């Protein structure tokens, strides 16, 4: 191959390369700056040629780069040559972008010259950060997920002082039946009883303030987006049970002003219930549908519909009552709490039978004022 033709081919490679390719000399002066480098950094080739390559770096590399080259020239030990790493690069407008950098020494060059390949990682980094954000949000939702679990923890906390109270009271009763009751001991037990009653009240107060604190975090939300996040969470639960979860979401829904996490808790609870109901179905279709729609100019509706056995008609009047449960280890608080959350949002949570079979739970929420 003749040199001139080789040069033309190298030039073509540099011109069409997607990654930035930059050649510098032993002082760090830019000798070559391809079109991809122009796009990446915002400098034209004529601006970049002859400048020190350190202008393309943020601090501390910017000030230290000359010494990096000097260190290599003095010791011959590479720190980045042939290794490559992810570094920050600085664009002409001062913005910083993450790049993957690979540097090589041009063979037989004396004094040595170096070629650098830079690949823009902005898109990849942003995708990773978004993934991380979604994951964190998921964890937060699933952490608070089952209202039943939360209720269980509260029940456990409150049962401790209640147990102490009932033990003390029973002990007092027995001691009073004795021929010579120890008055001091009984007095002390009574003091303990009132103390433990206050402790129980304190626990209830803490739960209430927790709920109040959460109620303030309302912001305009896209209800469909909330549902999509929840469905991503429950799909992994539905699949092993052979339950198909389908979404039937209306376009162009106006935003609602809600506490997104609380609404997601309610949805999770309803979908959990639906999946559990379906797990008792021997054969036939196991499907949970979440549907959204605008029912009136001022309201939108979210329905969670299952093809399970439906709610026992004998129970249908009481399913939102606290402690009404059909599950072996249910607390009977899931639907009760769900209903109070929705009502705190000026909405309604109702149940009606699904046709031909199953249950349908509908949430009505007022749309954000000024949007309808």
């Amino acid at each position: 191959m003749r040199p001139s033709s080789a040069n033309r081919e190298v030039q073509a490679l540099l011109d069409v390369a997607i990654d930035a390719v930059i050649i510098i000399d032993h002082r760090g002066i830019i000798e070559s700056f391809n079109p991809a480098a122009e796009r990446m950094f915002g400098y034209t080739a004529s601006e970049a040629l002859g400048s020190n390559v350190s202008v393309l770096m943020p601090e501390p590399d910017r000030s230290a780069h000359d010494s990096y080259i000097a260190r290599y020239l003095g010791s011959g030990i590479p720190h980045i040559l042939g290794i490559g790493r992810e570094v920050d690069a600085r664009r002409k407008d001062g913005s910083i972008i993450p790049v993957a950098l690979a540097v090589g020494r041009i063979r037989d060059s004396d004094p040595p010259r170096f070629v650098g390949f830079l690949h823009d990682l902005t898109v990849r980094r942003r995708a990773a950060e978004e993934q991380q954000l979604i994951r964190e949000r998921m964890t937060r939702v699933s952490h608070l997920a089952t209202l039943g679990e939360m209720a269980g923890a509260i029940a456990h906390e409150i049962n401790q002082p209640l147990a102490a109270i009932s033990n003390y009271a029973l002990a007092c009763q027995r001691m009073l039946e004795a021929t010579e009751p120890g008055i001091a001991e009984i007095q002390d037990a009574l003091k303990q009883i009132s103390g433990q009653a206050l402790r129980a009240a304190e626990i209830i107060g803490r739960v209430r303030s927790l709920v109040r604190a959460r109620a303030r975090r309302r912001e305009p939300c896209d209800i469909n987006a909330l549902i999509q996040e929840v469905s991503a969470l429950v799909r992994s639960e539905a699949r092993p049970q052979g339950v198909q979860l389908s979404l039937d979401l209306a376009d162009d829904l106006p935003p609602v002003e809600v506490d997104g996490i609380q609404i997601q808790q309610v949805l999770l609870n309803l979908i959990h219930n639906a999946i559990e109901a379906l797990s008792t179905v021997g054969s036939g279709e196991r499907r949970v549908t979440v549907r959204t729609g605008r029912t009136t100019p001022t309201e939108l509706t979210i329905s969670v519909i299952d093809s399970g056995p439906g709610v026992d008609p004998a129970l249908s009047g009481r399913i939102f009552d606290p402690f009404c449960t059909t599950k072996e280890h249910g607390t009977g608080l899931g639907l009760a709490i769900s209903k109070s959350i929705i009502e705190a949002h000026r909405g309604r949570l109702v149940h009606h039978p699904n046709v031909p079979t199953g249950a349908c739970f509908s949430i009505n929420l007022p749309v954000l004022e000024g949007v309808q």
Partner: protein
Amino acid sequence: MKPAATLAPIVYVVDDDEAVRSSLKLLLKSAGLTSLAHVSATDFLAAFDEDQPGCLVLDIRMPEMNGLELQDELNRRGAMIPVIFITGHGDVPMAVESMRRGALDFLQKPFRDEDLIDRVRIALALDKNNREQLGARDAIRCRLAALTPREMQVLQLLALGKSNKQMAGDLGVSQRTIEIHRAHLMHKVEATSVAQLVRMFLAADIGTSTY
């Protein structure tokens, strides 16, 4: 093992909640029962004496070592103390698991009326019975250890229901010799009848493999 009768039973209470612990102590005291309360499973294990008759009232949910883990440790040590689990929020799988591992009972806080006291009394009676049986077995084993090998052979054949004549044939001795062995045997084991002798032999649970 020390003789069980000399020690009054103790109800051990292990619960991380201070109010539950002290209220239980008072309740048990009002029922005339002696109790010792511990704040944690490890605290209890450090003080636990296998020879002390009693029962254990154990909270299932505790930080560090929970109730089920303590039960495991007691089972591992071969401890015979009956365990009554108590919990602030009963969940069925946990209850099932604890019973499967040999718990005597599973009660939810707060306790109904005299439920806890009743169960504790049952547990103490069970423990007493267990210890007496064990004690009796040890005593019988002690007496059996005094038998000569020949007397032991005769005892094992007796337990199989053989007559003096059959035994004489089996062992290649005269019936008179068998009669002498039997008399020594009855005396050493302090049995008043052959039926009692055989029952004691079976209770000692040492098998017939030596014959």
